[in-house]
């Protein structure tokens, strides 16, 4: 029972960052109809920026976190403006191929810059964990959880309470009508991609100091984000949030009770199961593509 509780707490904490990843991806898909294969690269970009600022430049940990997210937003905006803008109206396979090309180029550029050796990032938190009865949590992970929740809340507020968010939702529902009502679609696309990228970079910057940083870390992050988004239904933000937590629980329990080797396989099994049993995801929204 104690073990189960510990797994539950671990999953809850991991789930926050998974939800961040999922929300970013589902936003981009929902609004832009782009299957974003660079999502994982933005995640590892965030982690590497954290490494650069904290370990090489000696910047304060919290300031580095903010810098990493801002740079992630900038990179996302650049990718959208340089690669995706001219593909507007192209079919989904075409944009997918371009995103795969961008992913390979980004990942190998990263490997070239930082070498393939895994790197670790120091954190300023006390090393002794917080012990609550049978459960213990490291301060760093607790910090990750709190920041992730804050960012999720921020993303919800942005989408539901601001004018930009309203324009995003309008574009999601009907691009043409939104454009007729004076919504600047190009700007909305850039903003959406930058926001999604920023959330992915934040997830990477938060988890980088918890685990280690290496060039291919983004691949698993991408695939997990796909799993989360499919679980929740493509384009559904609440779905992605809950999907993130469900995936984290499945991974923790799978690793704890089946075999740690298959921890990362859980997400894929989940995808295949969901698509066989309930292809629209748990929170069906709008039509399916294709």
């Amino acid at each position, binding site marked *: 029972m104690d073990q189960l509780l510990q797994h539950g707490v671990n999953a809850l904490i991991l789930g926050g960052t998974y939800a961040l990843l999922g929300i970013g991806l589902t936003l981009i898909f929902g609004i832009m109809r782009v299957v974003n294969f660079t999502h994982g690269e933005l995640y590892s970009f965030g982690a590497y920026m954290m490494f650069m600022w904290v370990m090489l430049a000696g910047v304060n940990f919290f300031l580095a976190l903010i810098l990493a997210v801002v740079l992630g937003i900038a990179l996302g905006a650049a990718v959208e403006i340089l690669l995706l803008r001219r593909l507007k109206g192209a079919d989904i396979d075409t944009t997918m191929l371009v995103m795969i*090309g961008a992913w390979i180029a980004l990942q190998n550029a990263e490997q070239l810059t930082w070498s393939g050796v895994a790197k670790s990032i120091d954190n300023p938190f006390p090393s002794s964990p917080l012990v609550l009865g049978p459960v213990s949590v490291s301060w760093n992970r607790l910090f990750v959880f709190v920041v992730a929740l804050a960012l999720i809340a921020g993303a919800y507020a942005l989408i539901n309470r601001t004018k930009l968010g309203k324009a995003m939702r309008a574009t999601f529902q009907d691009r043409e009508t939104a454009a007729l009502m004076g919504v600047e679609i190009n700007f909305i696309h850039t903003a959406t991609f930058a926001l999604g990228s920023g959330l992915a970079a934040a997830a990477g910057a938060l988890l980088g100091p918890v685990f280690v940083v290496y060039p291919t870390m983004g691949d698993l992050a991408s695939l997990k984000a796909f799993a989360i988004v499919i679980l929740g239904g493509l384009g559904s933000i609440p779905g992605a949030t809950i999907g993130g937590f469900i995936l984290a629980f499945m991974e923790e329990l799978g690793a704890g009770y089946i075999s740690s080797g298959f921890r990362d396989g859980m997400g894929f099994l989940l995808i295949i199961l969901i698509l066989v049993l309930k292809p629209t995801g748990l929170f069906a929204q709008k039509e399916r593509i294709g």
Partner: protein
Amino acid sequence: MKRGATIAWLLFLFSVPLWMTDLYVLHVLIVTGIFIIAAMSLNLLLGYTGQLSLGHVAFFGIGAYVSSLVSLGFEVHLLPTWLVTLEAKPVWFAMLCGIALAGLCGWVIGKISFKVRGAYFVIVSVSFAEVVRLVALNWVELTQGPMALNNIPALRLGLPGWFELSFLRKPANYYLVLVVAVLCYVLIRRLVHSRAGRAMVALRENEPLATSVGVDVTKFLVLATMVSAAMAGAAGALYAHYVRIVDPDVFLFIYTVTMVIMVISGGKGTLIGPVVGGLIFGLLPEVLRAFAIKPEVQWVVYGVLMILVVYFLPDGIVPAVRKWWQHRGETTAAGDSATEAAR
């Protein structure tokens, strides 16, 4: 005339080991040939049914692993008390097993894909490849995990006491790969020109319309996936018995990407496209290596090329060249385009 060119090409390809004494070049050609087979199989799905399978390397890897395991023999506990043992079998039989199992997996994935299209199909196929890779990595008792399967025997054909052909040397392997590649090409050609092939293209172009005139969507999608998977499995089996070592890295996503680039750049939905794309992207790494370029830079170049191809040659090289050719000889175009279309 068309036929003459084809025969000349084949004669040229078959003559290569006679005058090419550099074994390294032969090795590169063999590996390229194996990848061209895989790319042709992917083209059947991507080019003719329009489904982008990003897990194609799973079938390649399954072919490689099954063929190696059957030819080596194995002992594995399916349950703690239930030990399954397989004696080592001849290589040709092992290869057939690899092809059959890859085809079976293709059948299952095809059945699932009946429900999903577009982005969903892509993600299912990626997930499938990743699950298979994790199994190969973690089921150490069967696959040796990261320690890899070693000493895989090379293919031997023949009747005991009469004659024996063993495919240990590079020229022999070159001929083997070439023959299989030609067989696959002919098979795909026959398939896409048959009723089934026309049904697949109909699905790609307009699925609701195809369904409304009575094309059985599930049947043809499953058929295409199965044939494509079995062919990729054949490529994997060839690879395993040529390189003679297989580790979980055969499932790396980057190999799928290589196949996709070969098909897209050459021209999806054309028979010769994957061959052209395969030759370019199979030989390009060697050219880049000659300039002492690091593999990371090579991959960056791949990524950028992929983006450029999508922007500037969205249909691929073969259709672009064909269009240019037709444009050049407008007057004789009528007759030529008929034969071109027939290819």
